[in-house]
């Protein structure tokens, strides 16, 4: 991989802010971004990509190409948690395997956003429908995870409450806000975006940088837990994302996705959830250890993707698409 791509990625304020946050914890500085400020930033980012994605979608329209991308997204969102589960079962009990598989089957919006910002600094772009794809990819892993659970776990005391599971999967706050603002952006089109752009467009990169400072702090706090995670899961937290990204690249090439879309798609597949899925797992699979799935997602996979994964996936795609 070109060293310059790596540098180009790292020497970006958002990524450096993430490292600054990490360093703050490692150097024990007591820097913190108290609640609910992180919530403000994450809400802002979700609304911003929702509105912008909807606006882009209103320009492009919902074409056959768009539907193709959405179908691929659904495919990967279903496949990843299944094969992840069987890999994890090699070493883990059913409960933890389910929770981790669901975590990696879903996506991380902030990883997606950071990748978009990276693409942007290279002067390239992606379709607004990728945000729709992302929204679609958040939920299936939760359902798949719980299907796995009811198939393989010997929990006889209580059945899965499927109504609750579907609510958790499709009406959790992240999915709801993304879906909702996507629709608002779509409905209000050019005129709506012009009114929202000063807050939700122009300020976007700065807000991302601010938020990544917090992500660095939160990831840093979890780093102490990594040793408890064990070598197998550490390797899993790095290799599975790379593997997922490569499968995505293959699919994207096969089905003729545009370069920017292929890149964003591979990043989505490589990323792991740290908000929606952990909340759902805590509720539906209390037997699983949240220290495992949260630590892996936040302290291993997220930093890996931000620092190395993004330029790596781009490098591969750049070579294939030219």
């Amino acid at each position, binding site marked *: 991989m070109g060293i310059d791509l790596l540098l180009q990625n790292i020497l970006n304020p958002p990524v450096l802010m993430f490292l600054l946050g990490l360093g703050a914890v490692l150097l024990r500085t007591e820097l913190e971004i*108290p*609640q609910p400020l992180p919530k403000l930033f994450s809400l802002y980012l979700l609304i911003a990509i929702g509105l912008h994605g909807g606006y882009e979608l209103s320009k492009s329209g919902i074409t056959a190409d768009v539907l193709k991308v959405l179908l691929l997204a659904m495919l990967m969102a279903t496949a990843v948690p299944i094969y992840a589960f069987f890999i994890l079962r090699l070493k883990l009990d059913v409960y933890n395997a389910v929770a981790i598989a669901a975590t990696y089957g879903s996506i991380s919006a902030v990883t997606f956003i950071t990748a978009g910002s990276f693409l942007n600094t290279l002067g390239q772009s992606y379709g607004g429908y990728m945000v729709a794809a992302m929204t679609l990819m958040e939920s299936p892993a939760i359902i798949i995870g719980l299907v796995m659970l009811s198939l393989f776990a010997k929990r006889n005391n209580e059945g899965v409450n499927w109504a609750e599971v579907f609510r958790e999967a499709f009406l959790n706050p992240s999915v709801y806000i993304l879906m909702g603002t996507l629709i608002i952006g779509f409905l209000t089109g050019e005129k709506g975006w012009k009114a929202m752009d000063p807050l939700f467009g122009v300020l976007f990169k700065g807000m991302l940088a601010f938020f990544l400072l917090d*992500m660095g702090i*939160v990831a840093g*706090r979890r780093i102490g837990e990594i040793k408890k995670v064990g070598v197998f899961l550490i390797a899993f937290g790095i290799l599975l994302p790379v593997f997922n990204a490569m499968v995505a690249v293959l699919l994207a090439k096969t089905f003729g996705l545009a370069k920017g879309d292929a890149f964003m798609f591979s990043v989505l597949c490589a990323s792991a959830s740290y*908000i929606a899925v952990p909340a759902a797992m*805590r*509720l539906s699979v209390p*037997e699983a250890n*949240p220290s495992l799935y949260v630590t892996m997602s936040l302290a291993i996979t997220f930093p890996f993707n931000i620092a190395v994964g993004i330029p790596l996936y781009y490098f591969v795609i750049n070579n294939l698409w030219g």
Partner: protein
Amino acid sequence: MKPMKKLEIVVDSVYLNRALEILEKNGVSGYTVIRDVLGKGERGLMAADELTDVFKNSYIFTVCEEEKAQKIAREINPLLKKVGGICIISDVVWVPH
């Protein structure tokens, strides 16, 4: 001045509503909740500052009659056992208005 029991519960915030349902079902006259308290116990540190909403406790207390307190404690036990938490009972005098 009525001698009553004060029942205090610390529970993972994700399960707050489930705990409150148990209180309501037992017909307590009221309760008070403090959200997002920190804590440490068997299950490690609940730092109450995560992005993920996964490591947060809530603190609940209710003032009620002795039998109710015992009954609620018994009913909330399986939940606390499964998801973590603590439940204590003490003597108080309620100054009714």
